[in-house]
């Protein structure tokens, strides 16, 4: 039950972007298309899961006072790996994501989970936590990307959805569209939470 809980909490109840309000920068900046969002989601999830596993493994040997620098070193190792792998195998995506790939290292989700979860829990639950949080992040960023791409360009994952008569609202793939989309998503979430509370 508790293992299942570790996994599920990241997806909705403690969703990093919509509820905890962390990891906003990549969630908005690279979510102008669904594909970019998915790419960023996978890259960040990979770093999150790997760093959670390593930190949970070494946590007994890490002195309390210098844990943050050690976490950062571990995280930046995996970020560098992601950086180079993406550059080699998917240069187009790498070019789209740009500076946000190395910036995964300061993504508060990853350091936050290292500090709040992986440092205190077993390897197995940390892996599941990383998986759940990563999935929650990837899900939100892909959804935001899909909404923006659909309205701003009339496509999802580069497939045309609306016919040729559709007039795309360019504003949605520009920066203001990102703010508006996430604002509406959070407003919906609040609305449903209030409904549940009233019952």
């Amino acid at each position, binding site marked *: 039950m508790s293992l299942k809980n570790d996994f599920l909490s990241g997806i909705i109840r403690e969703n990093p972007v919509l509820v905890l309000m962390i990891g906003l920068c990549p969630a908005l900046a690279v979510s102008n298309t669904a594909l970019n969002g998915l790419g960023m989601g996978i890259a960040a999830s990979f770093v999150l899961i790997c760093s959670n596993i390593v930190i949970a493994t070494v946590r007994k040997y890490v002195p309390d006072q210098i844990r943050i620098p050690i976490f950062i070193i571990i995280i930046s190792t995996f970020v560098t790996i992601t950086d180079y792998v993406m550059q080699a195998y998917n240069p187009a995506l790498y070019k789209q994501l*740009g500076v946000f790939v190395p910036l995964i290292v300061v993504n508060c989700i990853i350091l936050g989970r290292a500090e709040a979860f992986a440092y205190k829990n077993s390897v197995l639950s940390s892996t599941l936590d990383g998986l759940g949080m990563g999935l929650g992040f990837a899900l939100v960023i892909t959804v935001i990307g899909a909404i923006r791409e659909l309205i701003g360009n009339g496509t999802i994952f580069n497939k045309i959805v609306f016919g040729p008569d559709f007039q795309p609202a360019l504003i949605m793939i520009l920066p203001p*569209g990102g703010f508006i989309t996430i604002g509406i998503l959070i407003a919906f979430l609040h609305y449903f939470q209030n409904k549940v509370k009233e019952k």
Partner: protein
Amino acid sequence: MDSTSLFGIFIAALLINNILLIRFIALCSFFGVSNQMETSIGMGMAVIFVMMMASAVSWCIYHYLLLPFDLVYLRTASFILTIAALVQLEEMYLKKYVPTLYRAMGIYLPLITTNCAVLAVAFLNIDYKYSFLQSMVYTFGVSAGYTLAIILFAGIRERVALAPVPKAMQGYPIAFFTASLMSLAFLGFKGLFGL
């Protein structure tokens, strides 16, 4: 206007590619501390201060250490550690020698370590292949842009806090809508001075 002239770099960083509203970097602190005017000003000043130091140091590290010794793959790790150490050092220095300044922005300094803008600027200086002087001007433009945006945003948020907002929209959603409108306004700077 030439986009590589110092003034061009400054204006582009300050307004046209405003780091918060157009490039979406450092949003966590943007939404986190912009409730009040006073804290926003403190945060803005701290960001200018730290960012200038951090980009000077990281520029030197990259060009005098990583490039000559072929260690470019250590870029991410070395930059983030330098910045974290630098912030600690600055905090201790200010606490001891400039207590007034420390009181004004002390509590924001640790927050800045995880402020992605500082690291982002260090990377962007390298990516754009700026000279030292250019990167300093660029960094000043970026950090001034951050301060400008966060102070404007705090001013609006203080007013919005008093306005009747639908229940589901209270708090973050309305802040995002505000940011969206500001971002729209900043898009209008595109093409300023032909940049």
